[in-house]
C-alpha cells in the first residue's frame, strides 16, 4: 500500500507539486532562520566573551556595580594569589587579567607638539607573555598592517583611527590617561601594527597594549581591572555553578573591594538578549507550523474539492472512509517528507553558505556601541538537520487531517446522485 501511495504522489504531479513547493520553501526558510539565529546567539556569546565578559569574570564588588564604565580605579589589587587559587580549583579554565581604560592618543610633530589627537579606548592584555590573548582576540587575523608587539612599549591601534589620524607605522604616539589614584599620566608607545576586528565598537578607536605597560602607565602594579575566565565551550549552567561556588568562598558583601565572580549571562544585559532570542526562536517555529498548517489545510481542501469525484467513486465502490482518510494522511506524510528533504537540502546549503561567508551588516551597525561582529554568520548545528521536519511533516499532516475530515461528511446514499452530476 505504501509503495502504491508513494508512486501516486510521485506520478500524479497535479496532486503533489503545489504542496511540495510550499513545504520545501517553508522548511528552507525555517532552517535558514533557525541557523541564522543560532549563529547570532553564538557570535554574541563569543564576541562578548572574547572582548569583554569572558565566560565568567572576576572584579571587585565596587567595580561590578559600575562595570559598564570600566572603573579601573576600583579594580583588583594583588591578584596573583587569587589566580593561583583559581588555577588549582579550576584547572580547565584560562584566567586572563585585563585592564580596560579610556584616554587620548596624541601624535606629536617633529617639535613634540600635538599634530593630531583623538579619544581612544585601551585594552591592556598579556601580549608578551603567553599566546592565549593573541589567539583569543584573533590578533593575527585582525592584523591589517605591520606586526604584533614583540617588546615593551609597543601597541596595536585600530586601522580606522590610524588612517584618520594619519599615524605612520612605527611612529611614536603618546597615550594620555589617569592613574588608578586619578593622577594625570602619559606614556609613549610605538605603533607596530593596525588591526580591524569587524566589530564596530572596537574598530572605531582602540589600542591594544601589554598588561605590564598598562599597569605601569596607570600606576597599577599587580592590579587589574578584571580577570576573565574562559572555558573550552560556553555552558551557562556550569558557569553559574562556578560563580556561586567562588562567591561563597571568596566574596564578602561587606567589603566593596572583595572579589566577585559574574557569569556571562548576567553581564551587559546579555541574559535578557539571549533569553528573548531563545524564546523568539521557539515562538517563530510554532507560528511557522501554524501558518503552514493553514496553507496546507487550504491546499488540502482544494485537493479535496478537486478530488471530490475520486473520493466519491472510491466510497461508492466500497472503500472504507477510515482507509481513505488514512491513505490521505499517508500521502501527506510522503509529501511532507519529500518536501522537507528538498527544503532541508536547500536550507542547509544556504545556511552553510552564510556560515562560511556571512552577511556584511556594517552599514546597519555604523553607530553601534555593542560588541557585535559586522559580519553576521549562520551556525549550522545538528538540530538544523531535523528542525525543518517539524513544520514540514507536522504541517502537512495537520493540513491533511483537517481537510480529510470532509470524507466523513459524505453520505453513501447521495454518492450516485453526486456522481451523475
Amino acid at each position, binding site marked *: 500500500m505504501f509503495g502504491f501511495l508513494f508512486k501516486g504522489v510521485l506520478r500524479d504531479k497535479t496532486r503533489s507539486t503545489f504542496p511540495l513547493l510550499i513545504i520545501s520553501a517553508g522548511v528552507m526558510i525555517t532552517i535558514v532562520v533557525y541557523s541564522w539565529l543560532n549563529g547570532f546567539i553564538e557570535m554574541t556569546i563569543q564576541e562578548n566573551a572574547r572582548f569583554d565578559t569572558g565566560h565568567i569574570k572576576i572584579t571587585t564588588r565596587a567595580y561590578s556595580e559600575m562595570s559598564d564604565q570600566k572603573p579601573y580605579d576600583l579594580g583588583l589589587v594583588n591578584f596573583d594569589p587569587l589566580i593561583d587559587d583559581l588555577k588549582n580549583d579550576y584547572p580547565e579554565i584560562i584566567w586572563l587579567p585585563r585592564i580596560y581604560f579610556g584616554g587620548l592618543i596624541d601624535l606629536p610633530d617633529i617639535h613634540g607638539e600635538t599634530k593630531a589627537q583623538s579619544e581612544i579606548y585601551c585594552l591592556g592584555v598579556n601580549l608578551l607573555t603567553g599566546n592565549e590573548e593573541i589567539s583569543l582576540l584573533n590578533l593575527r587575523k585582525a592584523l591589517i598592517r605591520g606586526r604584533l608587539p614583540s617588546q615593551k612599549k609597543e601597541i596595536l591601534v585600530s586601522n580606522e583611527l590610524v588612517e584618520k589620524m594619519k599615524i605612520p607605522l612605527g611612529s611614536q604616539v603618546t597615550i594620555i590617561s*589617569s592613574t588608578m589614584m586619578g593622577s*594625570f599620566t602619559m606614556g609613549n608607545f610605538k605603533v607596530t601594527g593596525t588591526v580591524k576586528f569587524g566589530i564596530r565598537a572596537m574598530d572605531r578607536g582602540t589600542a591594544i597594549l601589554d598588561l605590564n605597560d598598562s599597569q605601569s602607565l596607570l600606576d597599577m602594579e599587580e592590579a587589574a581591572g578584571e580577570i576573565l575566565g574562559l572555558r573550552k565551550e560556553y555552558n551557562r549552567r556550569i558557569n553559574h555553578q562556578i560563580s556561586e561556588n567562588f562567591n561563597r568562598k571568596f566574596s564578602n558583601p561587606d567589603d566593596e573591594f572583595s572579589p566577585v565572580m559574574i557569569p556571562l549571562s548576567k553581564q551587559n544585559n546579555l541574559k535578557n538578549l539571549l533569553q528573548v532570542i531563545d524564546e523568539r526562536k521557539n515562538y517563530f517555529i510554532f507560528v511557522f507550523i501554524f501558518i503552514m498548517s493553514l496553507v496546507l489545510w487550504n491546499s488540502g481542501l482544494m485537493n479535496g474539492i478537486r478530488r471530490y469525484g475520486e473520493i466519491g467513486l472510491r466510497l461508492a465502490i466500497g472503500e472504507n472512509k477510515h482507509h481513505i482518510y488514512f491513505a490521505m494522511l499517508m500521502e501527506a506524510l510522503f509529501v511532507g517528507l519529500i518536501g522537507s528533504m528538498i527544503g532541508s537540502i536547500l536550507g542547509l546549503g544556504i545556511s552553510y553558505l552564510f556560515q562560511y561567508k556571512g552577511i556584511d551588516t556594517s552599514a546597519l551597525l555604523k553607530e553601534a556601541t555593542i560588541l557585535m561582529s559586522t559580519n553576521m554568520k549562520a551556525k549550522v548545528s545538528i538540530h538544523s538537520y531535523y528542525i525543518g521536519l517539524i513544520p514540514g511533516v507536522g504541517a502537512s499532516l495537520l493540513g491533511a487531517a483537517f481537510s480529510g475530515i470532509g470524507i466523513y461528511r459524505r453520505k453513501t446514499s447521495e454518492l450516485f446522485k453526486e456522481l451523475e452530476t
Partner: protein
Amino acid sequence: MRIFLLIITLLSWVLNLYCQFPDGEEILKKVDANMYSESSMSTSRMIIQTRRGSKTMKIKSWVKGEEKSFSEYLSPPKDAGTKMLKLEDDLWIYDPDADRSVQISGHLLRQSVMGSDLSYEDLMEEAKLYELYEAIVTGEEKKQQRSCWILELKSRKSDEAYKSRKVWIDKDRFLPLQEERYGKSGKLLKKTVIEEVKKIGERWYPIQIYFKDMLKSGDGTYFIIDEIEFEIDIPAYRFTKAALRN
C-alpha cells in the same frame, strides 16, 4: 481700605528687609579685593580622599594676574615633575615620564585634576568673581560661628563652568566661607568650605579649603596652603612652554 493698608504694610516690610541688605556686587568686589593679587607664589598640599584611600600631593605654584599660572608637582614620586601651565584660556600639562607636554582643551577641562575634587576649569578660574557673576544678597546666616551674607550669583556669560553659585561671605573678613556651585540644569555640582583662614599682610586669606565634587565618590579634597607670598616678581620665563621641560 483695610486691604490697602495691609498691602502698604507688607510692601514697606519687604522694602525694609531689602534695604537692610547691602549691595551684592559691592560685597563681591570686596571679596575680589581680598582674594585677588597681581602675583603670588605658594607651596601647598592637596589631600585627595578617594574610595581607595587618600594621597597627598605637594605643589608649588606661581600666579600672575588672571591670565598666567604655573604649577609643579613635587610629590608623591609618581607625580613629581608633572607641571601645568595656564596662559589665558589654554592649559598645557607636562609629564616627565613621557617628556611631553600636551594641551588640555574642550570637555577634558571638566575632568578631575589628579583625581581630586577640583576640575581643570576650577584650577584655571583666576578671574575676579565680580567679572564673572552678578550678585544679590538674599539673607544672612552664621557659618563657622561667623556672621555671613548669603549671596546668590548668576553667571554673566553663558559658557561659564557654573551657571550659578550660592556663597556665604564672612561679613567682616570678606571671605567666601562656604560655597555651592550649580550647573546649567540647577544641579549641585560642587561644595567648598574654607576651614582655616590666616591674615597675611593686610588681607585675610584661606589656607585650608575643603572641596567636594558632588558627582564623585570619595570623601572630598583638602587644599592646604603651607606658604604663600603676594605681589612678588616672577620672571617672564616661568610662564612659557619652555619652562615646562626644565
